[in-house]
């Protein structure tokens, strides 16, 4: 098991915070490169996420989204490159990845060692509305329940950075809507920095403070979303949507056509 060498904020007191930023960023990558053989998956990427900021990352398949997320999760070695992340990070994967041989609450408590783990797991599960499934086996959960368990498992660690890897992609449209609300509520409550990787432009716009478009291993576009939450698909929303789709190389529909699209469309940009 190769442990990635990631400089954690907790042990990073020596390096001075950038003078220009008012608050030290939770995540900072400068000119980051990740290469598999001759293939540069990430090519000189600059990324900075403020503490408590909700960032969505859009990009076509093969744009390096997953590689970037794995790097930030500490799953890939970074060599001696400068990668700053909070010392506590947690990932919610597209598939819930619960250990089938551990009951739900033990999955949430995975890797926690201190006392009162059960109480903490219980509280986290209650927060995601699963207080009644503490002792269930993961194989008996529905897709939405499994994903909420995965959320509870991430949040019980009070992470400084929450990484969401297309966590709603496998859910049905109704469940996905409920999960959006839940994630926003949890984010408001705990205020971790969030990086949401998604294919869904509407999802990105309705959730995030800032939407990034990743293309060929670099940030190709950035869109700050200042709309009030909850966000309705009004004209400003549609304008952002058109611009983002443009960055993704998808021909944006004309305004009157866009108005006909029911919200949320759950449309996947491939």
């Amino acid at each position, binding site marked *: 098991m190769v442990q990635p060498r990631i400089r954690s904020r907790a042990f990073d007191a020596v390096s001075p915070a950038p003078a220009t930023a008012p608050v030290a960023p939770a995540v900072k990558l400068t000119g980051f490169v990740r290469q598999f053989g001759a293939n540069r998956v990430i090519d000189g990427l600059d990324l900075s996420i403020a503490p408590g900021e909700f960032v969505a990352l859009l990009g076509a398949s093969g744009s390096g989204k997953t590689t970037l997320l794995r790097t930030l999760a500490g799953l890939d070695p970074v060599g001696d490159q400068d990668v700053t992340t909070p010392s506590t990070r*947690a*990932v919610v994967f597209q598939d819930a990845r619960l*250990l089938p041989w551990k009951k739900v609450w033990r999955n949430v408590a995975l*890797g926690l060692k201190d006392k009162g783990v059960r109480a903490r797991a219980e509280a986290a599960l209650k927060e995601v509305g699963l207080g009644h499934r503490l002792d269930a086996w*993961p*194989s*008996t959960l529905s897709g939405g329940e499994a994903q909420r368990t995965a959320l509870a498992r991430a949040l019980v*660690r009070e992470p400084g950075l929450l990484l969401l890897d297309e966590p709603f992609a496998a859910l049905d449209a109704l469940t996905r809507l409920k999960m959006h609300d839940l994630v926003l509520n949890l984010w408001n409550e705990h205020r971790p920095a969030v990086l949401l990787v998604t294919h869904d432009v509407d999802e990105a716009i309705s959730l995030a403070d800032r939407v990034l478009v990743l293309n060929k291993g670099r940030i190709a576009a950035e869109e700050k979303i200042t709309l009030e939450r909850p966000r309705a698909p009004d004209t400003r929303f549609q304008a952002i949507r058109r611009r983002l789709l443009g960055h993704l190389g998808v021909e944006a529909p004309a305004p009157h056509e866009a108005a006909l699209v029911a919200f949320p469309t759950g449309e996947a940009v491939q």
Partner: protein
Amino acid sequence: MSLAIADRISSARPWPNLLRWPRLSRARWLSPVLLLALWELGSRLGVIPERVLAAPSTVAETFWALTVSGELPANLLVSLARAAAGLSIALVVAVTLGLAAGLSRLGETAIDPLMQIKRTIPSLALTPLFIVWFGIGETPKIVLIAVATTFPIYLNLFAGVRGIDVRLVEAARSFGLSGWSLVREVILPGALPSFFVGLRYALGVSVLVLVVAEQINAQAGLGHLINNARDFMRTDIIVVCLLVYALLGLGADALVRTLERRALAWRPSLVEQ
């Protein structure tokens, strides 16, 4: 005449009706019971002499007599102790080697070729060598069982460890598990179903090897009982011992099933219990 009979059969059909009787047509116990009855009849009529094969009733009587006298339980216990000793050694060795080979490339390179070579040599063929090395006491018997049962446990554990869902391992690593805690929380439980397959197979093999091992000058045990019976042409005792071997096999299987039900309760069962 023949036409008349054919007519009666087709109209009355006493036999097909009996066989179509739904409960009788599914009675799987029927043919073994019929065989027993024929065997008993053959013995009573003198068609099957006692020295060839004792009658079922005689076998039952002998079974009871041997049990009451304590001869059978005492010898059974000796055999069970041998199997248990051999299996325990095999478990320790196979789990150690299986984990070492499963968890590291270096371990696989070092251990797996040796185990594969060992696999190609039938364990029972090692008997003469073990007699030369260890004499004719308890040691060669236990070593033979240990050697024969190591491989199935090793192979299945190795396959189980390698077959773990890497996405689960990755998730666990992202939550800070590494080293021994990763093995304990993720890899071992994930490999457990395969391990049980190996264990069940090893238990079956241990009974098989027990039979052969106890032919080596055993002073006690089921094999000793059989050898003595052979010398005195007591076919009833031989059959009793064969029955006990069969029961041992069934018991071993039931034991693993129980262990599996407890340890693998998390698995959704394909077939409802």
